[in-house]
């Protein structure tokens, strides 16, 4: 049962004191964001399920060490992003634009399988394009443009300065725009752009 008034930190303390329901409330409160972050990062329901479980299990096992310096949501998002990176590495399915041979088409991982048929066409195209964006940029896009988190929170989750978040966000959007195949003013070969965090290129 949801306890909207209880703070995450209080639920954690109650769980550590033996209240399993408090942990259930914590999971119920955050599972949707965690699952959707994983779904957009990995692009497959099966992988998203695994990453979500890995993230929550990892969080569960580290709860005792959670000191509350960061908000629990920030910490949980970080654990989730890391679980996704681990999973993408393990499956060697990360479609990295900059590692692709220039004359080979982009890899086409299986698209997600949304439950609602009416959203399939558009969201599958966007999801497929998203998987062509390098993972670091993709994570930034999901946090800022899908989950609508402030730059500051994305920076805390990703453990990078805000300037890096802004740079990754811009480069990621450009890469996504290209992957979507939208008309451009002119085509340039440096699709992924220069290294992040620079003022000039």
């Amino acid at each position, binding site marked *: 049962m949801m306890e909207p008034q209880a703070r995450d930190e209080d639920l954690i303390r109650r769980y550590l004191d033996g209240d*399993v329901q408090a942990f259930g409330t914590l*999971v119920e409160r955050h599972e*949707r964001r965690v699952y959707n972050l994983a779904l957009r990062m990995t692009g497959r329901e099966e992988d998203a399920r695994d990453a979500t479980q890995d993230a929550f299990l990892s969080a*569960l096992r580290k709860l005792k060490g959670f000191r509350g310096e960061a908000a629990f949501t920030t910490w949980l998002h970080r654990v989730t992003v890391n679980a996704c990176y681990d999973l993408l590495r393990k499956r060697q399915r990360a479609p990295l634009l900059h590692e692709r041979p220039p004359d080979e088409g982009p890899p086409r991982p299986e698209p*997600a399988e949304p439950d609602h048929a009416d959203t399939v066409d558009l969201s599958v195209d966007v999801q497929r394009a998203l998987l062509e964006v390098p993972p670091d940029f993709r994570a930034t*896009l999901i946090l800022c443009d899908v989950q609508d988190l402030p730059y500051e929170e994305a920076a805390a989750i990703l453990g990078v300065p805000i300037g890096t978040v*802004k740079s990754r966000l811009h480069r990621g*959007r450009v890469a996504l*725009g290209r992957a979507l195949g939208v008309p451009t003013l002119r085509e340039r070969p440096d699709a992924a752009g220069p290294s992040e965090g620079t003022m000039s290129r």
Partner: protein
Amino acid sequence: MTHPEDLLADYADGTLPDDERAVVDVHLSSCETCREEVALASRAIPALASLPEEPVPFGVTEPIVAEARRIVQQRRPAWGRIQWAAGLAAAACLVLLAVVAVPRLTDGTDEEQTLRAPAAEAGIGQEGVGGTTLEALPALELLDRDLDERDARRLAREAAKVAPSVPRTSDAAVEAPDDAIGCLVASGATLDDRDVLVRLIQARYLGTPAYVGVFHEGPGGGEPPERVVVWIVSKADCTILTLLSQSL
């Protein structure tokens, strides 16, 4: 040419202060590269916003909560576990297993025959048949959903991901006179020191109202379990609808 890259995300978001926006506008008027990038970014933003938030599928987080419960129960001393079980029963919160202490089912009752016959058929000895432990009895999860073979495989896979439960020997043998457990037992499932029932679900399986038992099954004697068994029976007549197992 120096490009104001650190401003372009805010520019595309429309959150740049007027003075900085003016700087970017001046730059864009003479930089085709940045104009193109801003155009691409401006198309990416609504595309990302259009991604729907998907519901969390069945069975993703339930094993996590089960694992949290297992960890708490391991920490709790024996008297605490009994208090916990008694509290649950008293509150009758979701747990419909009325835990009643009874003698071990080793005195030749009909139930014992039901318990033992399939175990013997499966080549499992009967000596260990007795009460299951308090902490092995999960709450019944009520799912208004039709499951299929794929869901059954997921249940097994997900139960295999949580740390294996080691059955404990308890002095207080218990019986769970509950339809779900009774039905699983009637169909041949065993609850003894080799098996830990980790999940108990009421749902439908291919359209048939069903009970689902997810077990960690092992050699007994305090040894860790070796596999997950998913046991799905008809709620109406307790016949087995499907069985599957997966190694841990």
